[in-house]
């Protein structure tokens, strides 16, 4: 399971890169702690951030300012590990839907957490798009009709049913909560790609993308 966040250059007020591509690895928890150094809430004004990286071997330097107080954080960088390439290619997409997050939020908040898996069925026929859980008290299905006004795009060519570990998908609900739209795609192997469109206060757009491998091979109906 892999999560990627894309923050476009134009979201930044200034974005300068001396090389074509800069890659390094840092501890995410530490980064989050530093970004929240003035507290998590937006009460008390907004925080300004400046990130500098001199290059290989140097730490990532964060300058954070709020209300006249400046904090400097230097986070050690590591050799980047090669991120797993899920080889999810847009050319190889079997089924794709784009839903408004509102309705998916409701479904995800009600999902039976005693179920170890979340099963996703996508099909050109009924039930079109279905989320299923299999928990202690029974099973539950959430069906989205292709004609639903929550369904912005429906491109399903082949009936596919795949199961994914609930524990792997749980973190994606954070992205779901702040997103306004989500695209759900599966490829021929059943690898799931969830793309969340996040719009910030200024109306700018970022994407968060999750890849998840299916739990087991499920026979296609």
């Amino acid at each position, binding site marked *: 399971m892999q999560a990627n966040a894309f923050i476009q250059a134009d979201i930044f007020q200034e974005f300068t890169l001396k090389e074509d591509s800069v890659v390094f690895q840092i501890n995410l928890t530490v980064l989050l702690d530093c970004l929240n150094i003035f507290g998590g809430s937006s009460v008390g004004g907004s925080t300004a951030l400046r990130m500098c990286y001199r290059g290989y071997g140097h730490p990532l330097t964060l300058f954070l300012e709020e209300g006249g107080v400046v904090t400097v954080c230097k986070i050690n960088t590591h050799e980047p590990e090669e991120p797993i390439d899920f080889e999810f290619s847009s050319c190889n997409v079997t089924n794709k839907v784009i839903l408004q997050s509102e309705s998916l939020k*409701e479904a995800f908040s009600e999902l039976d957490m005693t179920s170890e898996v979340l099963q996703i069925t996508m099909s050109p026929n009924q039930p079109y798009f279905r989320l299923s859980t299999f928990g202690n008290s029974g099973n539950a299905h959430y069906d989205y009709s292709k004609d639903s006004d929550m369904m912005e795009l429906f491109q399903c060519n082949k009936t596919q049913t795949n199961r994914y570990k609930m524990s792997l998908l749980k973190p994606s609900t954070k992205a779901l909560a702040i997103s306004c739209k989500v695209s759900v795609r599966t490829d021929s192997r059943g690898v799931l790609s969830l793309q969340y469109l996040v719009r910030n206060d200024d109306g700018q757009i970022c994407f968060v993308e999750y890849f998840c491998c299916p739990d087991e091979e499920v026979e296609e109906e």
Partner: protein
Amino acid sequence: MQCVVTGGNVKVLGKALHSLSRIGDELYVEPQEDGLALRSVNSSRSAYACFLFAPLFFSRYSIPSGLNFRCKMAIKSVLTVFRSLATLEKTVEKCHISLDEQKDRLTFTLHCKHGLLKTHNLSYQDSESLEAVFDKDNCANVFRAQPRVLVDTVVHFTTSLEEVTVTVSDERMWVRNYVEDDAERSKAMLTELCLAADEFDHFAVKSHNSITFCLKEFRGLLLFAESTGLPVSMYLDEPGSPVVLSVTDSVLEGNFVLATLSDDHSLHKSNRGADAEQPQPPDDFMNDDMDAYLIAMDTSVAPGPSTAGPPTSSLATCRKPPAPNYRTRTYSEEEENGEEDPGRPPDKKFRSLFFGSVLPPSPQMSTQPVTTQEVLASDSEDETEAE
């Protein structure tokens, strides 16, 4: 079995289930000719609740004739279907309930806005009939009040409070928290509210009784009554007899039957006292009648020094001396007299055997539709294979 609930009734059904979840962990479902019965009982069998939804509550209610089916399931599973009442109200257009006896599944299908369909297939277990035996019509005291009156009363008690004592006289009803442990009484906050007869829609007292029962389950009923706005009827009898709380309208009837502390226990209680060193919290629950009552009691335990103390500052928010012809005095609990008797069993004794063999139908029994003559048995030996 096929039932369809539409519109606002979906939320009513959800509210009923939430109320039932305050009683016990399991939901007993029994579709009957006169409606769908949903019941719950707590583990100590001292609280029972039943909601009967008449066929008219449903936009469609069809059960095969001669269907003799009852089942039980974990109430938590059903609550997941009706978890968010606000969402139910906003998005659910229709709720379809159907039974698949082959697969032992009860299916709830919620047809929601925006073309969303939620299907819950819940597994159940076969169960014995669960019906409490109670006779509302023969209760000595009957009251009916708007739910707001009762909600405003119980709000004064902490959520951790277990039991309340309700005392009635011709014109008044007192509700106060029940403090069992005498040692705690001097440290406890005692709260008492007094309701006048004119705050009730109906107030008929035939015998001045004082009963103690669990507040938690009472709140469970109030939850439902308040949201539906239905008046609550209370049927009080003597201590030890269950108190029955009901809400009814043309398409549904809800009955909560709660056991009350039995009389002998309250008698024994009065023999226990706090330590002599601990000063009594001044209260004016004592009066001449109390003294007379004390003398009439078991004199093997001498009254303590505080007995004759005059009533001082009032802890009660409203106070009127009880009428002299009280039959039962649980005010005697307030008498912190006598020595503590360590040999006495400390626990309260709830009369829990109001379940018994179901009596043959009679014209006076207008309470529960009696469909079986089976003695309510513990269902543990009746669990059949659920698969």
